[in-house]
């Protein structure tokens, strides 16, 4: 359980780094799409952990 939490927190770290990257390269217009894509990525990765549930989850989405 602690491992799952640690992995999840590591994944969340990506958001902070994306923000800093946009700041450094001054490409602020990338932020909206990166945030949405990374969020989608989190969802997809979560689904891959329980692939048998994806038809039900996608029905909701």
């Amino acid at each position, binding site marked *: 359980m602690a491992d799952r939490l640690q992995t999840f927190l590591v994944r969340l770290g*990506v958001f902070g*780094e*994306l923000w*800093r*990257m946009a700041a*450094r390269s001054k490409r602020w*217009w*990338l932020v*909206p*799409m990166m945030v*949405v*894509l990374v969020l*989608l990525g989190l969802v*997809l990765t979560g*689904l*891959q952990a329980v*692939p*048998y*549930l*994806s*038809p039900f989850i*996608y029905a909701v*989405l």
Partner: protein
Amino acid sequence: MTISAANLPIWLASWLVWKIVPGRAAAKMAEFSHTEAGSGLDMLAAVEETTRPELRARYFRHALDELRHARLFRERAQAWSGARGRTQAVLEDSGFIASHGIRTTESLFRQLGEREFLAFVWVHEKRGAEQFDIYASLLGHDAATAAMFAEIAKDERFHIAYSRAELDRLAKAGDEAGVRGAVFKVRARRAWQLWVRLSLDFGNFMAGIWLTILYVVLLGPFSVVARAERPVGGVVPPAPRPAPADRAREMI
């Protein structure tokens, strides 16, 4: 070969594949080539990992058979398709085995252990033999193909025989319940994996739709901004960056 209730669905599906959709047959041969190759690699891993010396020879022979089948299917695929298009792409796809879950980073033998591995071999070889029987009957008109399926069938009989013999040996040595349990687990896992496979494919399909929507909605509006970025040609001086020890932790 008789069509029974058990193999009717496969027969129908195969009939559709071979007869109705032309180029599909060659691509299917290419897929079989990969599946057989994956099997062969699993058997080679079993040779290295088993603790039973007497089984190493069987697994090795089985591995060589599977690898030979892979080559035979590859040759059929190329003969039917003339090495073009979709079939060639499948044949050349070295990531096919991994992306289709045929093999993972841990060998099948290590995942299952000897007893369940033997059960796996027995169940899958039997299933494979039935499946190939059907394909052979549908494609019997082609002499080379018929010969190929005949050779494969002969090898499969050996695979079925030795794995069953080993399982029987284990059962007789007192582990009958364990053997039955292993066979049950293998069969159950097949059904489960089919569901997982379908779910994953469905998930990928839906994700594709979402990504297309996002592409138009999220990326499209900024294309003007992106195009306005002046590409700097030639050797560009590097932007200032922190010292190695400070920037090493970043992913940016």
